[in-house]
C-alpha cells in the first residue's frame, strides 16, 4: 500500500522534474506507519505512453560509453580465445561468440551478437537547437533539413559548373568532349539507403526530385569536376556470374571429356555425368530416360539446358536421382545438367544461362503445416456460430 502510493507519487514528481525524488524516499523511510492519503490518480498517468515517446533516444555520451565498452570487451574476448588483441577482426569476434554461446535458434537475428555500437544503435539526430531554443541549421523549419540542404548543395554545384562553363567559353576553350564519368556497373542509391544517409524520412516524390537533380548535374559537359561528390551517391553492382563455380573438365582414359555435377530440388538429389561422346544416349538410374520419364513435360525439362546451348545430340548423359516425385526429380536433373554444361560452354553463354534461370536453384519447398489449420494454408470449416 505504502509502496504503491509512493510509486504513484514518485511518478508524478518525476514527470514535472526530478527535484522531489530524494524527499519522497526519505519520507517513506522515516514515517512508515502513518497512512498516507492516496492522491487520486488514474493508472494511465503512471503507465508510460509508449507511442508518444517515439524511438528511444540515446545521448552521445551513452554511445561513446558503449563504444569504449565494446573495445575493452573485444580485447577481453581476444585474450579469452588466446588470440592477439591487436589483430582481432569482426569475423574473429563472430566466430568466438558462436563458439562460446552456441545457439539452436533458427532465426539468425535472434542469436547472441557482439558488434560495434554503430551497427547496433540506430543513427539518431543530435539536438538541433541550442539552449535558447534557436535552431542551428538555417533550413530547420522546413522539417526535412538534411534533404533540403543536400538539394541546396547540388544546385550550388550546378551553378558552379555553369560559371566554369562560361569562363571556358569566354576564354574560347569550350569543348563538349570532356572526360565523362563512368556510370556503368553502378546504380543510384535506393530510397532506404538515402534515408539511412540523411537520418530522416524521405518520401517517394522527394527521392525522385533528388535523382532528377543529379541527372541534370550529370547532363552538363563539365560534370567530371564533381565526380567524387556524384560517386558518393552511386553504388557498385557486383557481377553475378562470377559467383558460379564451374565444375572441372575431366578426361576419360579414352580421351573423352566429361564433367560431373549435382543438383537439388525439393528433397530430390541428382548427380549427372556429362560425356562429350557425340551421341544422344541418356541413362537415368540405369534405365532409359524414355522409360524413367514417360511424361513429356519431364523430358522437356531435361531437354531445356541442352537445347538452350544448342548441343542437343552432342552429349551422353548418365544420371542418378533419388527422392521426391517425378517433377522434382526432373527439376533436379535439369539443374545438374546446366551446372555440368558450364565447363563446356563459354563465359558469355554462362551469363545467358544465368539470365535464363537455368543456374538458379528453385528455393520452394513444402510449406509447414500450422496448428489450428488443416494444412499450410487451408483452414478448418468456418462456422458463423
Amino acid at each position: 500500500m505504502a509502496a504503491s502510493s509512493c510509486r504513484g507519487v514518485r511518478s508524478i514528481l518525476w514527470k514535472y522534474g526530478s527535484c522531489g525524488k530524494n524527499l519522497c524516499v526519505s519520507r517513506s523511510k522515516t514515517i512508515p506507519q502513518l497512512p498516507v492519503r492516496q492522491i487520486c490518480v488514474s493508472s494511465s498517468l503512471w503507465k508510460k505512453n509508449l507511442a508518444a515517446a517515439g524511438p528511444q533516444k540515446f545521448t552521445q555520451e551513452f554511445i561513446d560509453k558503449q563504444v569504449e565498452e565494446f573495445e575493452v570487451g573485444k580485447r577481453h574476448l581476444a585474450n579469452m580465445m588466446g588470440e592477439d588483441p591487436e589483430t582481432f577482426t569482426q569475423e574473429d569476434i563472430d566466430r568466438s561468440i558462436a563458439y562460446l554461446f552456441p545457439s539452436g535458434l533458427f532465426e539468425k537475428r535472434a542469436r547472441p551478437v557482439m558488434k560495434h555500437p554503430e551497427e547496433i544503435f540506430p543513427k539518431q539526430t543530435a539536438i538541433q537547437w541550442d539552449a535558447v531554443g534557436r535552431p542551428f541549421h538555417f533550413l530547420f523549419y522546413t522539417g526535412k533539413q538534411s534533404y533540403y540542404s543536400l538539394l541546396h548543395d547540388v544546385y550550388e554545384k550546378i551553378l558552379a559548373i555553369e560559371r566554369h562553363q562560361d569562363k571556358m567559353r569566354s576564354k574560347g576553350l569550350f569543348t563538349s568532349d570532356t572526360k565523362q564519368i563512368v556510370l556503368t556497373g553502378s546504380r543510384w542509391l535506393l530510397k532506404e539507403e538515402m534515408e539511412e544517409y540523411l537520418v530522416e524520412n524521405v518520401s517517394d516524390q522527394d527521392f525522385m526530385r533528388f535523382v532528377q537533380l543529379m541527372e541534370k548535374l550529370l547532363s552538363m559537359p563539365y560534370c567530371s569536376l564533381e565526380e567524387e561528390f556524384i560517386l558518393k551517391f552511386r553504388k557498385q553492382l557486383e557481377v553475378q556470374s562470377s559467383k558460379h563455380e564451374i565444375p572441372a573438365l575431366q578426361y576419360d582414359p579414352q580421351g573423352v571429356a566429361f564433367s560431373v555435377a549435382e543438383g537439388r530440388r525439393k528433397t530430390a538429389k541428382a548427380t549427372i555425368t556429362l560425356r562429350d561422346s557425340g551421341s544422344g544416349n541418356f541413362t537415368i538410374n540405369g534405365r532409359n530416360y524414355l522409360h524413367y520419364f514417360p511424361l513429356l513435360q519431364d523430358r522437356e525439362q531435361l531437354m531445356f539446358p541442352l537445347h538452350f546451348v544448342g548441343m542437343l545430340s552432342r552429349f551422353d548423359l548418365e544420371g542418378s536421382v533419388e527422392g521426391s516425385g517425378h517433377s522434382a526429380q526432373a527439376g533436379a536433373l535439369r539443374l545438374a545438367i546446366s551446372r555440368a554444361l558450364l565447363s563446356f560452354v563459354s563465359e558469355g553463354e554462362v551469363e545467358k544461362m544465368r539470365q535464363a534461370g537455368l543456374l538458379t536453384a528453385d528455393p520452394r519447398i513444402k510449406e509447414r503445416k500450422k496448428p489450428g489449420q488443416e494444412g499450410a494454408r487451408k483452414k478448418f470449416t468456418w462456422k458463423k456460430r
Partner: protein
Amino acid sequence: MNLHKLSSRLCPTVTQKFRHLHIQSSGQQLESVAVETASAEPNPLSVFRTSEQDPAYHSERQSGQYYTFPPAHIQKLFPHGLPPRFQLQIKTFNEGCVMVRPPALELISYLKRADYSKPPLRYVLYGDTGTGKTLSLCHALHYCYTQGWLIVHIPDAHLWVKNCKELLPSSSRPSRFDQPIQASHWLKNFKITNEHFLSKIKTTQRYVWTKRESTEMGQPLGELVDQGVNRMKSSSDVVGAVLRELRLQAGGITEGEGAFKLAVAVDGVNALWGKTSLKKEDRTLCEPEELTLIHNLRKMMKNNWSGGAILTALSQTGSLFTPRSAYLPNELLGEEGFDHMEPFVPVSVSNYDEKEFESCYLYYLDRNWLQHPHSRSEEGKKELIFLSNKNPSILERLCAFL
C-alpha cells in the same frame, strides 16, 4: 484379285508400270491435298516412299521406305486388325502407309523359305513398348494375304481376358466359360477376311450344338461360321470347331482346290498364359485355361499340325499384372508360356534408327502433319529426336499436336 496377282507374277514389268500409273493418279489426287513438296515432283517416288506395293518383293533396298496398303486390302484383311491409332492415321491421311523395316523383312524372308510340309514355325516378335511389333505383324500378314493364305488373325488376345461383360458357363464342357460377344465378333471378322475360302473347305466331323441344331459332315465352313454368328450362345464352341477344322486341313491336301496355307497371327500372345481379370460367380479369379477361346487358341499354338506358320507378337501394353519395364519373352510369357511356345524364332523389334527416323519425319512433312514452322528446321528435328528417343509410337503422339 487372284488374277491380278497371277498376272503380276507372270509379267512383272508390265503390271508394275500399270501400278505406277495407278499410283500416280491416286497420288495426284492426294497431292492436291498436300501443297508444297510433293506436287513439284515429276516422279511419284520421294525418298521415303517406295513404289513396290507387293510385300513379296520387299527387300533391304526398300528398308526405311513407306509403302501403301491398297484400300481394298485394308477393308478385307484388317477389319479389326490394325491398332486404333493407326486406323485414325489412315482416316486422316486418306491412305494406309507402313514403313518397311528389318524385323518385318526378316519375318517375310523366313516365311518365304520355310518348308510347309513340316510342322509350323513359331515366330515371336518382341521388343519395347511402341517400337512397332503390331505393325510389323500386319506387314507380314499382308504378305501372307497377297500370297493367298488363309488368315486367322486375333488382333489382341488381351481383349479376351479382360473386360468381358458376359461370361457364360460353357454349353459343352462344365468347367469352362464362354464369351459369346467376343467370339461372334471375331467370327464375323474372320468371315470378311477369308470370304473366298469359306465355300471351299468342308467339315470333317459332325458337330452338335443343341438338341435341334447340328452341322453335318461335309458342310462348307461358311455354314459353320454362320452358325456361330447367328447363335451367340454356342459361338465360342464354333470358334473351337473352326480352328480344329483348319488345323486338320491346312497342309493336308497339297494339290487341288482345297490347298491352302494357314497363317495364325496372334497379337498379345502373352495373354494366353498370364492372368485374367475376369471373375467367376463365386468371386474367384478365372484361370485362362478355363476360358474356351483361350483353350482353343492354346491348342492352335502347338505345332502338331502342318502347312502354315504361327506369327505372334508380345505386348506389355494391354497385359495384366506385368511390370511396365518387362519386354523380353521369358518375362512376359512366364514359365508356362515359354515352355509351351518353345521352340520359337524370336524376332526383335527396336526403335527407329537414323535413316528410319528421317523417313518418318519426311513422311509427316509430306502429309503436312507437322504444322509448326519450327518443326521443319534442323533444330526442330533434333528436338523431336531428343523428346521421342526415336520411338515410333511416342514420335507419333508427339507429332499429333505439333
